[in-house]
């Protein structure tokens, strides 16, 4: 391996103004043991073909721009090292699945943005507390209850990996449902039932078949799969109690 000097990338190309269909183009790229797939793409853009189109910015796995499919697996390309692909032939780089391709490795994420907004991902309260009254008290154990669900960088790897997103493009999907759960579990929030109208709808949590591909590909351990299952339970309990206790569904509810 140490005498490897170049690697071959097979990159999906598609320009809707010119191409009928996507195609693959091969590039010979210098090998550096510290390089990630994104570095190789940047080398191509600067040295071989400046029309190669992809998104990136932070190069430290936190902005979420550079999610792609590398050799069939969803990856942040800024954290997918070339050295981990050596000896297995060309490295194939494709855009995320389950999204329309805008161009080359750039996908159309407008649908996702609408889903994100649909779950009302903000603190909902009956009464706002004045800033002068200081912060809300939140014990470390209360923070811990939802903290891991706050770590989503919206990289969309989970939407690419989720079979249900492929079958039903309307499915709200893992990242947005996990975000709804994050707010539902926040001790400062009172909006769970408002969000339930969306998360409990036909395109909500019940569309998930718990394959957990989302949690497997998640680079930030947000565990969207678990978040969805917990919401199913919470929604069921609410449904059950609403039918047992007349008027409950309209009453002001506080968090457990």
């Amino acid at each position: 391996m140490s005498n490897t000097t170049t690697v071959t990338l097979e990159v999906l190309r598609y320009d809707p103004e010119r191409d009928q269909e996507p195609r693959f183009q091969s590039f010979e790229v210098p090998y550096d043991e510290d390089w990630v797939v994104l570095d190789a793409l940047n080398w191509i853009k600067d040295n071989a073909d400046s029309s190669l189109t992809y998104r990136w910015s932070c190069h430290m796995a936190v902005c979420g721009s550079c999610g792609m499919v590398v050799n069939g697996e969803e990856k942040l390309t800024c954290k997918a090292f070339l050295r981990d692909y050596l000896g297995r032939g060309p490295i194939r780089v494709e855009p995320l699945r389950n999204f329309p391709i805008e161009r080359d490795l750039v996908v159309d994420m407008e649908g996702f943005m609408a889903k994100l907004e649909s779950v009302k991902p903000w603190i909902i309260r009956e009464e706002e507390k004045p800033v002068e009254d200081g912060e809300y008290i939140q014990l470390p154990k209360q923070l811990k209850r939802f903290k891991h669900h706050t770590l989503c960088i919206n990289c969309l790897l989970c939407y690419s990996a989720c079979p249900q997103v492929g079958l039903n493009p309307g499915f709200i999907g893992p990242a947005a449902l996990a975000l709804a759960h994050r707010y539902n579990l926040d001790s400062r929030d009172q909006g769970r039932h408002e969000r339930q109208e969306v998360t409990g709808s036909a395109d909500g949590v019940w569309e998930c078949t718990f394959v957990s591909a989302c949690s497997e590909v998640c680079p930030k351990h947000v565990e969207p799969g678990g978040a969805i299952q917990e919401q199913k339970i919470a929604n069921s309990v609410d449904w059950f109690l609403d039918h047992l206790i007349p008027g409950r569904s309209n009453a002001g509810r506080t968090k457990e």
Partner: protein
Amino acid sequence: MDVLQTDVVIVGAGGAGLRAAIAVAEADPALSVTLISKVYPMRSHTVAAEGGAAGVIKENDSLENHFNDTIGGSDWLADQDAVEFFVEQAPKELTRLEHWGCPWSRDPDGRVAVRPFGGMKIERTWFAADKSGFHILHTLFQTSMKYPSIKRLDEYYTTDLLLEDGRAVGVLSHEMRSGKPVVVLGKAVILCTGGAGRVFPFTTNGAIKTGDGMAMAYRAGVPLQDMEFVQYHPTGLPGTGILISEAARGEGGILVNKDGYRYLQDYGMGPADPWPRKKAMELGPRDRLSQSFWQEQQKGRTIQSKWGDVVHLDLRHLGEKKINERLPFIRDLAKSYVGVDVVTAPIPVRPVIHYTMGGIASDITAGTPLPGLFCAGETACVSINGANRLGSNSLAELLVFGKVAGEAAARLARSVPAPSEASALAQAKAHRARAEALVDGSRGTEAVATIRRDMMATMESGCGIYRTQEGLEQTCTTLRDLRRRYRDVKISDRSWVFNTDLTQALELGAMLEIAETMALSALLRTESRGAHQRLDHPQRDDAGFLTHSMAWRQGDEPPRIDYKPVTITKSQPAARVYGGAAS
């Protein structure tokens, strides 16, 4: 060309732009806000900030302390009226963010926790583990969605400000997906487009930080202020430049040279013990720590690594539990990018370009010399940072002045009529010709990547941690030549669909102009202050340079530099001391 009329135009949807948008929406829900960004908001570089945001909240602290730390940290170049306002507002803004759901780390009693930071006398940095910027950005973005008056244009690249009767009245942007131009007209314009770290080759800054807004304002006749002051963060990963947060030192990490010696004690930061100790050793300010690395390198006491010279940042004594709780991202980054588990081994680090202290000339009102134009965040030079920004002041700054900008723009929008389309359209068509010529490929011979590489190389060689007249003159000459070559730039991508070749060419045009303001301002400042260190003028010169530099664009010629006084209210310039001398 499509024309969109709105009340307030905001360019840039990072922390400052989102905070400004929310401020407009809260000031008057009837005002329409158009928030334009070349990336989706959550990609904005606020996302990469790690350590935290400063604001006085604990009983052992005071606004006076925060003020004094910031003024001293700035080497007395910050404007004191602005700093006084800033330290008063910061705690309110951070609390507001808490109410909006930011998952701040907590003390055992459930109150917000704070940690020590460099150059700060008392611990006052609010944090969300070591992803504070990420959480601030996502909290603001998610909260912004609840205001129906905020309309976003995501992935629209803005190239130019549009003017009418000496006022800013809108911008020319194009939808990146289609290349289609759109004129967005408003009664007020706010620029929140971040810094310009990408003019250097080795930087913590993401690819998007190309100073577009600074260049737009500069081309519209607004001066760029204090551009010679560029911050090196002392601890970046070698090779990639990935940021290793100052929080690593705030939590107790130490820096050692090849002999395992805590070398900062040789540069006015000592004595080494007791440790940890505020405003001393590893908790000194960034400029001093980066300069100390350079000095150690000259003495041959840095460590040779496969990525070049480094020193070691040692966190091992913090223990795995604390590291996992307070610095989990640092552990992940070091493991992934340099193969080091910080629990068992020290991290190789070196100084890395991090922050543009200078920016669009602004003040406590978030206004600029151009009526109708406001700015906030790294793109602005208020200045609360002066010659050297203290870590954790910038996240608080983008909140405080983002809000000020939004409220000021809202007030203006209610008092002026909508601009007329005709004049703006004529300007837009002229500006648009530049992009069209590039995509048509009808002219040009120079490659974007080549000019960019040469620009970065000359900035690093002449405009780095220590500067000399000779090096700066060479850089100025090279940049002038690069600007000339850029007039002949060509791109090869002929498609209007998501043409990133075009984006990079336009970004390069912005960066070249900004680089020139940095190098020329640095050449003319014949003193050493904060992050601007001249080997040939090693002393601070208050008689000559207790002033803000102002770079005014002169067409194809280098900028004209003049100066404006620093606002001093209650802290007279004094010796800047850290370590034992400070206590």
